[in-house]
Protein backbone atom coordinates (compact mmCIF):
# COMPACT_ATOMS: atom_id res chain seq x y z
CA UNK A 1 0.00 0.00 0.00
CA UNK A 2 2.80 2.32 0.83
CA UNK A 3 4.37 1.73 -2.50
CA UNK A 4 1.14 2.52 -4.20
CA UNK A 5 0.82 5.69 -2.17
CA UNK A 6 4.27 6.84 -3.14
CA UNK A 7 3.69 6.05 -6.76
CA UNK A 8 0.64 8.27 -6.60
CA UNK A 9 2.73 10.94 -5.00
CA UNK A 10 5.21 10.77 -7.81
CA UNK A 11 2.48 11.12 -10.32
CA UNK A 12 0.96 14.05 -8.48
CA UNK A 13 3.95 16.10 -7.48
CA UNK A 14 7.22 14.95 -8.84
CA UNK A 15 6.82 16.00 -12.41
CA UNK A 16 9.86 18.12 -12.99
CA UNK A 17 9.34 21.61 -14.24
CA UNK A 18 11.92 20.98 -16.90
CA UNK A 19 10.60 17.82 -18.23
CA UNK A 20 13.64 16.50 -19.98
CA UNK A 21 14.38 13.97 -17.28
CA UNK A 22 15.28 10.66 -18.80
CA UNK A 23 14.99 7.32 -17.10
CA UNK A 24 18.02 6.53 -14.98
CA UNK A 25 18.57 2.82 -15.12
CA UNK A 26 20.16 1.16 -12.15
CA UNK A 27 21.52 -2.38 -12.06
CA UNK A 28 18.85 -5.04 -12.22
CA UNK A 29 19.13 -6.90 -8.95
CA UNK A 30 16.93 -7.81 -5.97
CA UNK A 31 15.65 -4.67 -4.28
CA UNK A 32 15.66 -2.46 -7.36
CA UNK A 33 11.86 -2.34 -7.30
CA UNK A 34 11.96 -0.89 -3.79
CA UNK A 35 14.55 1.69 -4.80
CA UNK A 36 12.48 2.78 -7.75
CA UNK A 37 9.24 2.86 -5.79
CA UNK A 38 10.62 4.81 -2.84
CA UNK A 39 13.75 6.80 -3.64
CA UNK A 40 12.57 8.06 -7.01
CA UNK A 41 9.53 9.69 -5.44
CA UNK A 42 11.65 12.63 -4.36
CA UNK A 43 14.76 12.54 -6.54
CA UNK A 44 16.08 11.06 -9.73
CA UNK A 45 18.20 7.96 -9.32
CA UNK A 46 21.34 9.54 -10.71
CA UNK A 47 21.87 10.59 -7.08
CA UNK A 48 22.76 6.95 -6.48
CA UNK A 49 25.07 6.76 -9.47
CA UNK A 50 27.07 9.86 -8.66
CA UNK A 51 27.52 8.70 -5.08
CA UNK A 52 29.07 5.40 -6.08
CA UNK A 53 30.82 3.14 -5.67
CA UNK A 54 32.72 4.65 -2.77
CA UNK A 55 30.22 4.16 0.12
CA UNK A 56 30.61 1.12 2.32
CA UNK A 57 27.52 -0.60 3.73
CA UNK A 58 27.53 1.57 6.84
CA UNK A 59 27.50 4.75 4.76
CA UNK A 60 24.64 3.52 2.58
CA UNK A 61 22.74 2.63 5.77
CA UNK A 62 23.33 6.13 7.07
CA UNK A 63 22.17 7.71 3.82
CA UNK A 64 18.93 5.76 3.74
CA UNK A 65 18.34 6.52 7.42
CA UNK A 66 18.92 10.21 6.70
CA UNK A 67 16.31 10.14 3.97
CA UNK A 68 13.80 8.66 6.40
CA UNK A 69 14.62 10.54 9.58
CA UNK A 70 15.70 13.93 8.29
CA UNK A 71 13.88 14.23 4.99
CA UNK A 72 10.79 12.35 6.11
CA UNK A 73 10.72 9.68 3.42
CA UNK A 74 7.82 7.32 4.26
CA UNK A 75 9.71 4.07 3.75
CA UNK A 76 8.64 0.97 5.63
CA UNK A 77 11.28 -0.94 7.56
CA UNK A 78 11.30 -3.96 5.27
CA UNK A 79 11.68 -1.75 2.22
CA UNK A 80 14.41 0.27 3.87
CA UNK A 81 16.37 -2.90 4.52
CA UNK A 82 15.94 -4.05 0.94
CA UNK A 83 17.10 -0.66 -0.31
CA UNK A 84 20.16 -0.64 1.93
CA UNK A 85 21.11 -4.13 0.84
CA UNK A 86 20.64 -3.28 -2.82
CA UNK A 87 22.77 -0.14 -2.60
CA UNK A 88 25.56 -1.80 -0.63
CA UNK A 89 25.72 -4.78 -2.98
CA UNK A 90 25.42 -2.91 -6.25
CA UNK A 91 26.78 0.55 -5.57
CA UNK A 92 29.04 0.06 -2.57
CA UNK A 93 32.70 -0.52 -1.94
Amino acid at each position, binding site marked *: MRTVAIAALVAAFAVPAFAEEKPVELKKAPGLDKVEANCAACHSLDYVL*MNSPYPNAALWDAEVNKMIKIYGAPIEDADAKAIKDYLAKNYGS
Partner: protein
Amino acid sequence: MAGFKLGRDSERARDAVQDTSQSQGDFGEESLTASRRGFLGGAGLAALGLATGGALPLLGDTAEAAPLNLPPALPQGVRQNAILDALPGKKPLIKLSYRPPNYETPIEYFRTAITPTDAFFVRYHLSDIPEIDPKTWKIDVGGEGAAGTLQIGLDDLKAMPAVEVVAVNQCSGNRRGLFDPHVPGVEWGYGAMGCARWKGARLKDVLAKAGIKKEAIEVVLSGADGPPFDKTPDFIKSIPVWKAMEDTTLIAYEMNGAPLPHLNGAPARIIVPGWTGTYWMKHINSIKAVTTPDKNFWMAGAYRIPLGKFPLVARFVSQETAVNTPITEMVVNSLISSHADGAKVKSGTPVGGIAWDGGYGIQTVEMSFDGGKSWMPAKLGEDLGRYAFRTFSLPVKGKGKITVMARATNAIGQTQTAKLIHNPPGYHHNVIQSVSLTVA
Protein backbone atom coordinates in the same frame (compact mmCIF):
# COMPACT_ATOMS: atom_id res chain seq x y z
CA MET B 1 0.85 34.81 6.54
CA ALA B 2 -1.36 32.15 5.19
CA GLY B 3 -1.67 31.92 1.54
CA PHE B 4 1.80 32.00 0.36
CA LYS B 5 3.60 28.81 -0.24
CA LEU B 6 6.54 28.10 1.93
CA GLY B 7 9.02 26.69 -0.44
CA ARG B 8 12.36 27.43 -1.32
CA ASP B 9 15.48 26.37 -2.40
CA SER B 10 18.45 27.46 -2.88
CA GLU B 11 21.82 27.46 -3.48
CA ARG B 12 21.82 29.08 -6.54
CA ALA B 13 22.68 29.14 -9.85
CA ARG B 14 23.56 31.79 -11.95
CA ASP B 15 23.98 32.78 -15.32
CA ALA B 16 25.67 35.37 -16.99
CA VAL B 17 25.00 36.96 -20.16
CA GLN B 18 27.41 36.74 -22.97
CA ASP B 19 28.98 40.06 -22.47
CA THR B 20 31.25 40.84 -25.31
CA SER B 21 32.51 43.86 -23.48
CA GLN B 22 34.15 41.56 -21.00
CA SER B 23 37.60 40.64 -21.99
CA GLN B 24 38.60 37.12 -22.75
CA GLY B 25 40.84 37.41 -19.79
CA ASP B 26 44.41 37.64 -20.77
CA PHE B 27 44.54 34.67 -23.03
CA GLY B 28 45.35 35.26 -26.63
CA GLU B 29 43.08 33.92 -29.29
CA GLU B 30 45.61 31.32 -30.22
CA SER B 31 45.70 29.92 -26.76
CA LEU B 32 41.94 29.95 -26.52
CA THR B 33 41.56 28.02 -29.70
CA ALA B 34 44.26 25.58 -28.79
CA SER B 35 42.98 25.08 -25.33
CA ARG B 36 39.43 24.65 -26.45
CA ARG B 37 40.62 21.84 -28.62
CA GLY B 38 42.56 20.49 -25.74
CA PHE B 39 39.55 20.55 -23.53
CA LEU B 40 37.13 18.46 -25.36
CA GLY B 41 38.69 17.16 -28.48
CA GLY B 42 37.22 17.88 -31.86
CA ALA B 43 33.88 16.19 -31.62
CA GLY B 44 33.07 17.27 -28.11
CA LEU B 45 34.06 20.77 -28.86
CA ALA B 46 31.98 20.95 -31.92
CA ALA B 47 29.12 19.69 -29.81
CA LEU B 48 29.59 22.53 -27.40
CA GLY B 49 29.81 25.00 -30.18
CA LEU B 50 33.03 26.45 -28.95
CA ALA B 51 35.30 25.49 -31.75
CA THR B 52 33.49 27.76 -34.09
CA GLY B 53 33.42 30.61 -31.71
CA GLY B 54 30.34 30.61 -29.63
CA ALA B 55 26.96 30.02 -31.15
CA LEU B 56 25.69 26.61 -30.26
CA PRO B 57 24.48 24.34 -32.97
CA LEU B 58 20.96 23.07 -32.55
CA LEU B 59 21.64 19.72 -31.13
CA GLY B 60 18.45 18.93 -29.41
CA ASP B 61 18.46 18.87 -25.71
CA THR B 62 21.36 16.60 -24.99
CA ALA B 63 24.79 15.84 -26.19
CA GLU B 64 25.35 12.53 -24.56
CA ALA B 65 28.62 10.70 -24.46
CA ALA B 66 30.59 13.82 -25.12
CA PRO B 67 34.14 13.60 -23.81
CA LEU B 68 33.72 15.59 -20.65
CA ASN B 69 37.28 15.31 -19.45
CA LEU B 70 36.06 15.19 -15.87
CA PRO B 71 38.63 15.30 -13.06
CA PRO B 72 39.98 11.83 -12.23
CA ALA B 73 39.43 12.51 -8.53
CA LEU B 74 35.63 12.47 -8.90
CA PRO B 75 33.75 9.35 -7.86
CA GLN B 76 33.76 6.76 -10.61
CA GLY B 77 29.97 6.98 -10.71
CA VAL B 78 30.19 10.63 -11.75
CA ARG B 79 32.80 9.98 -14.39
CA GLN B 80 30.71 7.20 -15.89
CA ASN B 81 27.31 8.84 -15.72
CA ALA B 82 27.57 12.61 -15.93
CA ILE B 83 26.47 13.88 -19.33
CA LEU B 84 26.13 17.16 -21.13
CA ASP B 85 22.46 18.07 -21.07
CA ALA B 86 20.67 21.33 -21.85
CA LEU B 87 17.97 22.66 -19.57
CA PRO B 88 15.50 25.11 -21.16
CA GLY B 89 17.29 28.32 -22.00
CA LYS B 90 20.68 26.87 -21.13
CA LYS B 91 23.66 25.61 -23.02
CA PRO B 92 24.58 21.98 -22.42
CA LEU B 93 25.95 21.81 -18.89
CA ILE B 94 27.30 18.88 -16.92
CA LYS B 95 24.25 17.07 -15.57
CA LEU B 96 24.79 15.44 -12.21
CA SER B 97 21.11 14.97 -11.37
CA TYR B 98 17.87 15.58 -13.25
CA ARG B 99 15.52 15.99 -10.27
CA PRO B 100 16.09 18.21 -8.51
CA PRO B 101 18.23 19.69 -11.29
CA ASN B 102 21.90 19.96 -10.43
CA TYR B 103 23.97 21.02 -13.43
CA GLU B 104 27.48 22.41 -13.32
CA THR B 105 29.30 24.73 -15.69
CA PRO B 106 32.08 23.23 -17.83
CA ILE B 107 35.48 24.74 -17.01
CA GLU B 108 35.94 26.41 -20.37
CA TYR B 109 33.26 28.98 -19.48
CA PHE B 110 35.48 30.23 -16.66
CA ARG B 111 37.95 32.08 -18.86
CA THR B 112 36.21 35.40 -18.32
CA ALA B 113 35.32 37.34 -15.20
CA ILE B 114 31.63 37.18 -16.12
CA THR B 115 30.08 33.76 -16.57
CA PRO B 116 27.57 33.60 -19.43
CA THR B 117 24.01 33.42 -18.10
CA ASP B 118 23.13 30.51 -20.32
CA ALA B 119 26.12 28.56 -18.99
CA PHE B 120 25.52 29.49 -15.35
CA PHE B 121 25.19 26.49 -13.02
CA VAL B 122 21.84 25.32 -11.68
CA ARG B 123 21.38 23.95 -8.19
CA TYR B 124 18.20 22.99 -6.35
CA HIS B 125 17.76 21.05 -3.12
CA LEU B 126 14.14 20.08 -3.58
CA SER B 127 12.24 19.15 -6.66
CA ASP B 128 8.95 21.02 -6.50
CA ILE B 129 9.88 24.02 -8.63
CA PRO B 130 6.73 25.90 -9.60
CA GLU B 131 6.16 28.14 -12.54
CA ILE B 132 5.76 31.68 -11.25
CA ASP B 133 3.79 34.51 -12.83
CA PRO B 134 5.87 37.64 -12.22
CA LYS B 135 2.75 39.79 -12.50
CA THR B 136 1.08 38.27 -9.48
CA TRP B 137 4.20 37.20 -7.55
CA LYS B 138 4.71 38.96 -4.20
CA ILE B 139 7.19 38.88 -1.37
CA ASP B 140 5.70 38.83 2.13
CA VAL B 141 7.85 40.99 4.40
CA GLY B 142 7.41 40.94 8.16
CA GLY B 143 8.27 38.75 11.13
CA GLU B 144 8.20 39.49 14.84
CA GLY B 145 11.40 41.48 14.43
CA ALA B 146 9.64 43.92 12.13
CA ALA B 147 7.32 46.73 13.12
CA GLY B 148 4.85 45.94 10.37
CA THR B 149 4.18 43.77 7.38
CA LEU B 150 3.90 44.44 3.70
CA GLN B 151 3.76 42.75 0.35
CA ILE B 152 5.91 43.88 -2.52
CA GLY B 153 5.78 42.85 -6.14
CA LEU B 154 8.20 43.09 -9.00
CA ASP B 155 7.12 46.60 -10.04
CA ASP B 156 7.53 47.79 -6.44
CA LEU B 157 11.06 46.39 -6.34
CA LYS B 158 11.96 48.03 -9.63
CA ALA B 159 10.64 51.37 -8.41
CA MET B 160 13.17 51.34 -5.57
CA PRO B 161 16.75 52.59 -5.95
CA ALA B 162 18.59 50.02 -8.05
CA VAL B 163 22.03 48.69 -7.19
CA GLU B 164 24.37 46.64 -9.34
CA VAL B 165 27.09 44.37 -8.04
CA VAL B 166 29.31 41.88 -9.78
CA ALA B 167 29.53 38.90 -7.48
CA VAL B 168 30.45 35.24 -7.41
CA ASN B 169 27.77 32.77 -6.54
CA GLN B 170 29.42 29.54 -5.49
CA CYS B 171 27.80 26.47 -4.00
CA SER B 172 29.18 25.64 -0.56
CA GLY B 173 29.90 22.17 -1.87
CA ASN B 174 31.66 23.14 -5.07
CA ARG B 175 34.45 20.55 -5.62
CA ARG B 176 32.86 18.17 -3.10
CA GLY B 177 33.44 15.38 -5.59
CA LEU B 178 37.18 15.92 -5.26
CA PHE B 179 37.20 15.15 -1.54
CA ASP B 180 39.41 12.25 -0.49
CA PRO B 181 37.90 10.31 1.13
CA HIS B 182 34.63 11.07 -0.66
CA VAL B 183 31.66 12.41 1.25
CA PRO B 184 28.02 11.98 0.20
CA GLY B 185 26.10 14.75 -1.51
CA VAL B 186 25.97 16.30 -4.94
CA GLU B 187 29.37 15.31 -6.30
CA TRP B 188 30.39 18.60 -7.89
CA GLY B 189 33.57 19.08 -9.83
CA TYR B 190 34.84 22.62 -10.42
CA GLY B 191 31.74 24.19 -11.92
CA ALA B 192 29.17 24.83 -9.18
CA MET B 193 29.86 28.52 -9.38
CA GLY B 194 29.65 31.55 -11.59
CA CYS B 195 30.05 35.31 -11.54
CA ALA B 196 27.40 37.70 -12.79
CA ARG B 197 26.41 41.34 -12.70
CA TRP B 198 23.34 41.37 -10.46
CA LYS B 199 20.86 44.23 -10.31
CA GLY B 200 18.16 44.76 -7.75
CA ALA B 201 16.89 46.62 -4.72
CA ARG B 202 18.79 46.61 -1.45
CA LEU B 203 17.38 44.15 1.06
CA LYS B 204 17.82 46.81 3.74
CA ASP B 205 15.60 49.25 1.84
CA VAL B 206 12.83 46.66 1.72
CA LEU B 207 13.28 45.85 5.41
CA ALA B 208 13.11 49.57 6.21
CA LYS B 209 9.67 49.73 4.65
CA ALA B 210 8.47 47.18 7.19
CA GLY B 211 10.49 48.81 9.96
CA ILE B 212 13.11 46.58 11.51
CA LYS B 213 13.19 46.45 15.33
CA LYS B 214 16.44 46.73 17.21
CA GLU B 215 15.85 43.30 18.77
CA ALA B 216 15.93 41.62 15.35
CA ILE B 217 18.95 39.31 14.99
CA GLU B 218 18.31 37.32 11.81
CA VAL B 219 16.44 37.70 8.55
CA VAL B 220 14.74 34.49 7.43
CA LEU B 221 14.53 33.89 3.69
CA SER B 222 12.17 31.55 1.87
CA GLY B 223 11.41 30.91 -1.78
CA ALA B 224 8.60 29.45 -3.84
CA ASP B 225 10.22 26.11 -4.50
CA GLY B 226 9.77 23.32 -2.03
CA PRO B 227 9.80 19.59 -1.38
CA PRO B 228 7.70 17.18 -3.39
CA PHE B 229 6.55 15.64 -0.12
CA ASP B 230 5.33 17.62 2.87
CA LYS B 231 7.38 15.78 5.51
CA THR B 232 10.62 17.01 3.94
CA PRO B 233 11.91 20.23 5.50
CA ASP B 234 11.31 23.16 3.21
CA PHE B 235 14.46 25.01 2.21
CA ILE B 236 14.64 28.07 4.45
CA LYS B 237 17.75 30.05 5.32
CA SER B 238 18.54 32.98 7.56
CA ILE B 239 21.30 35.55 7.53
CA PRO B 240 22.43 37.77 10.38
CA VAL B 241 20.88 41.23 10.41
CA TRP B 242 24.28 42.86 9.95
CA LYS B 243 24.74 41.04 6.66
CA ALA B 244 21.19 41.79 5.56
CA MET B 245 21.87 45.49 6.09
CA GLU B 246 24.96 45.66 3.90
CA ASP B 247 24.67 47.86 0.83
CA THR B 248 25.43 45.01 -1.56
CA THR B 249 22.95 42.49 -0.16
CA LEU B 250 20.21 42.66 -2.76
CA ILE B 251 16.89 41.34 -3.92
CA ALA B 252 18.01 40.95 -7.52
CA TYR B 253 15.72 40.76 -10.53
CA GLU B 254 18.36 41.07 -13.24
CA MET B 255 21.42 39.06 -14.10
CA ASN B 256 23.92 40.30 -16.67
CA GLY B 257 21.52 42.89 -17.97
CA ALA B 258 18.49 40.66 -18.46
CA PRO B 259 15.69 39.36 -16.24
CA LEU B 260 16.74 36.42 -14.08
CA PRO B 261 16.17 33.10 -15.83
CA HIS B 262 13.68 30.87 -14.07
CA LEU B 263 16.33 28.31 -13.14
CA ASN B 264 18.46 31.01 -11.56
CA GLY B 265 15.69 32.28 -9.32
CA ALA B 266 13.12 34.40 -11.19
CA PRO B 267 11.35 36.67 -10.57
CA ALA B 268 13.88 37.69 -7.91
CA ARG B 269 16.49 36.14 -5.68
CA ILE B 270 18.63 37.21 -2.76
CA ILE B 271 22.23 38.17 -3.50
CA VAL B 272 24.66 37.86 -0.58
CA PRO B 273 28.04 38.87 -2.03
CA GLY B 274 30.99 37.09 -0.48
CA TRP B 275 28.90 34.36 1.09
CA THR B 276 28.29 30.91 -0.34
CA GLY B 277 25.27 30.23 -2.50
CA THR B 278 23.18 28.59 0.18
CA TYR B 279 21.99 32.01 1.33
CA TRP B 280 21.16 33.32 -2.15
CA MET B 281 17.52 32.33 -1.93
CA LYS B 282 15.86 31.85 -5.29
CA HIS B 283 12.23 32.62 -6.14
CA ILE B 284 12.16 34.67 -2.93
CA ASN B 285 8.65 35.06 -1.55
CA SER B 286 9.09 35.53 2.18
CA ILE B 287 11.44 37.75 4.20
CA LYS B 288 11.03 37.81 7.96
CA ALA B 289 13.01 39.63 10.60
CA VAL B 290 13.21 37.48 13.74
CA THR B 291 14.38 38.00 17.30
CA THR B 292 15.50 34.42 18.02
CA PRO B 293 17.79 32.17 15.98
CA ASP B 294 16.00 30.27 13.23
CA LYS B 295 16.00 26.56 14.11
CA ASN B 296 14.87 24.93 10.90
CA PHE B 297 16.82 21.96 9.56
CA TRP B 298 18.65 23.90 6.85
CA MET B 299 20.14 26.22 9.46
CA ALA B 300 20.50 24.02 12.55
CA GLY B 301 21.28 20.77 10.79
CA ALA B 302 22.94 21.59 7.51
CA TYR B 303 25.46 23.94 5.97
CA ARG B 304 27.65 23.88 9.04
CA ILE B 305 31.42 23.74 9.29
CA PRO B 306 33.57 22.65 12.21
CA LEU B 307 34.70 25.53 14.40
CA GLY B 308 38.26 26.66 13.98
CA LYS B 309 39.22 24.74 10.86
CA PHE B 310 38.96 27.50 8.31
CA PRO B 311 40.57 30.94 8.38
CA LEU B 312 37.36 32.93 8.12
CA VAL B 313 36.48 36.36 9.41
CA ALA B 314 32.72 36.72 8.94
CA ARG B 315 30.82 35.04 11.76
CA PHE B 316 27.17 34.17 12.21
CA VAL B 317 27.22 34.34 15.99
CA SER B 318 23.54 33.73 16.73
CA GLN B 319 23.81 30.33 15.00
CA GLU B 320 27.14 29.17 16.44
CA THR B 321 27.35 26.15 18.74
CA ALA B 322 30.25 24.80 20.78
CA VAL B 323 31.35 22.62 17.87
CA ASN B 324 30.22 24.15 14.61
CA THR B 325 29.04 27.25 12.86
CA PRO B 326 27.10 28.06 9.71
CA ILE B 327 29.19 28.38 6.61
CA THR B 328 29.56 32.07 5.75
CA GLU B 329 32.05 33.69 3.41
CA MET B 330 33.87 31.86 0.64
CA VAL B 331 37.49 30.84 1.10
CA VAL B 332 40.07 32.29 -1.28
CA ASN B 333 40.38 30.15 -4.36
CA SER B 334 41.49 29.96 -7.98
CA LEU B 335 40.88 27.83 -11.04
CA ILE B 336 43.15 27.23 -14.02
CA SER B 337 40.72 27.39 -16.92
CA SER B 338 42.73 28.26 -20.03
CA HIS B 339 43.78 24.69 -20.69
CA ALA B 340 42.52 21.27 -19.79
CA ASP B 341 44.59 18.84 -17.83
CA GLY B 342 46.81 17.04 -20.34
CA ALA B 343 46.70 19.72 -23.05
CA LYS B 344 49.63 20.46 -25.36
CA VAL B 345 50.77 24.08 -25.58
CA LYS B 346 53.50 26.10 -27.25
CA SER B 347 56.10 27.67 -25.02
CA GLY B 348 55.09 31.22 -24.15
CA THR B 349 51.36 30.59 -24.48
CA PRO B 350 49.39 32.45 -21.80
CA VAL B 351 48.08 30.06 -19.19
CA GLY B 352 45.71 31.19 -16.49
CA GLY B 353 42.23 31.34 -15.11
CA ILE B 354 40.19 33.08 -12.43
CA ALA B 355 40.57 33.82 -8.72
CA TRP B 356 38.04 34.91 -6.08
CA ASP B 357 37.43 35.09 -2.36
CA GLY B 358 34.85 36.09 0.23
CA GLY B 359 34.89 39.74 -0.71
CA TYR B 360 38.20 41.10 0.55
CA GLY B 361 39.53 41.17 -3.00
CA ILE B 362 42.25 39.24 -4.78
CA GLN B 363 45.67 40.70 -4.08
CA THR B 364 47.98 38.36 -5.97
CA VAL B 365 47.92 35.12 -7.90
CA GLU B 366 51.17 33.22 -8.15
CA MET B 367 51.80 30.51 -10.68
CA SER B 368 54.24 27.65 -10.77
CA PHE B 369 55.33 25.75 -13.87
CA ASP B 370 57.47 23.24 -12.00
CA GLY B 371 55.04 21.57 -9.66
CA GLY B 372 55.35 24.10 -6.87
CA LYS B 373 59.13 24.43 -6.58
CA SER B 374 59.17 28.02 -7.78
CA TRP B 375 56.40 30.62 -7.97
CA MET B 376 55.99 33.80 -10.01
CA PRO B 377 53.32 36.50 -9.82
CA ALA B 378 50.75 36.25 -12.59
CA LYS B 379 49.32 39.24 -14.42
CA LEU B 380 45.86 40.10 -13.11
CA GLY B 381 43.03 41.05 -15.46
CA GLU B 382 40.30 43.63 -15.13
CA ASP B 383 39.05 44.38 -11.62
CA LEU B 384 35.25 44.17 -11.57
CA GLY B 385 35.08 44.63 -7.82
CA ARG B 386 36.03 42.73 -4.72
CA TYR B 387 33.23 40.18 -5.03
CA ALA B 388 34.00 39.25 -8.65
CA PHE B 389 36.12 36.70 -10.43
CA ARG B 390 39.55 38.15 -11.26
CA THR B 391 41.31 36.74 -14.29
CA PHE B 392 45.03 35.95 -14.22
CA SER B 393 47.59 34.60 -16.66
CA LEU B 394 51.27 34.10 -17.33
CA PRO B 395 53.16 32.85 -20.42
CA VAL B 396 54.01 29.22 -19.85
CA LYS B 397 57.66 28.28 -19.39
CA GLY B 398 59.40 24.93 -19.52
CA LYS B 399 59.62 22.04 -21.91
CA GLY B 400 57.95 18.69 -22.11
CA LYS B 401 55.49 17.59 -19.46
CA ILE B 402 55.14 20.16 -16.69
CA THR B 403 52.85 20.68 -13.72
CA VAL B 404 51.14 24.07 -13.61
CA MET B 405 49.76 25.39 -10.34
CA ALA B 406 48.06 28.62 -9.24
CA ARG B 407 47.77 30.06 -5.75
CA ALA B 408 45.63 33.10 -4.97
CA THR B 409 46.07 35.40 -1.98
CA ASN B 410 43.49 37.97 -0.92
CA ALA B 411 43.78 41.46 0.51
CA ILE B 412 43.84 40.22 4.11
CA GLY B 413 46.58 37.67 3.45
CA GLN B 414 44.49 34.52 3.23
CA THR B 415 45.71 31.99 0.71
CA GLN B 416 44.79 28.58 -0.63
CA THR B 417 45.51 25.39 1.21
CA ALA B 418 48.04 22.84 -0.03
CA LYS B 419 46.28 19.99 1.77
CA LEU B 420 42.53 19.42 1.86
CA ILE B 421 40.80 20.59 5.02
CA HIS B 422 38.47 17.63 5.25
CA ASN B 423 35.02 18.15 6.73
CA PRO B 424 32.00 15.81 6.69
CA PRO B 425 29.69 17.90 4.49
CA GLY B 426 32.39 18.56 1.91
CA TYR B 427 32.57 22.36 1.95
CA HIS B 428 35.24 24.97 1.23
CA HIS B 429 37.50 22.97 -1.07
CA ASN B 430 40.26 25.39 -2.04
CA VAL B 431 43.19 23.06 -2.50
CA ILE B 432 45.83 24.41 -4.89
CA GLN B 433 45.05 22.85 -8.25
CA SER B 434 47.62 21.07 -10.41
CA VAL B 435 47.25 20.87 -14.18
CA SER B 436 49.57 18.80 -16.34
CA LEU B 437 50.58 20.40 -19.65
CA THR B 438 52.97 19.32 -22.38
CA VAL B 439 55.01 22.26 -23.66
CA ALA B 440 56.39 22.05 -27.17
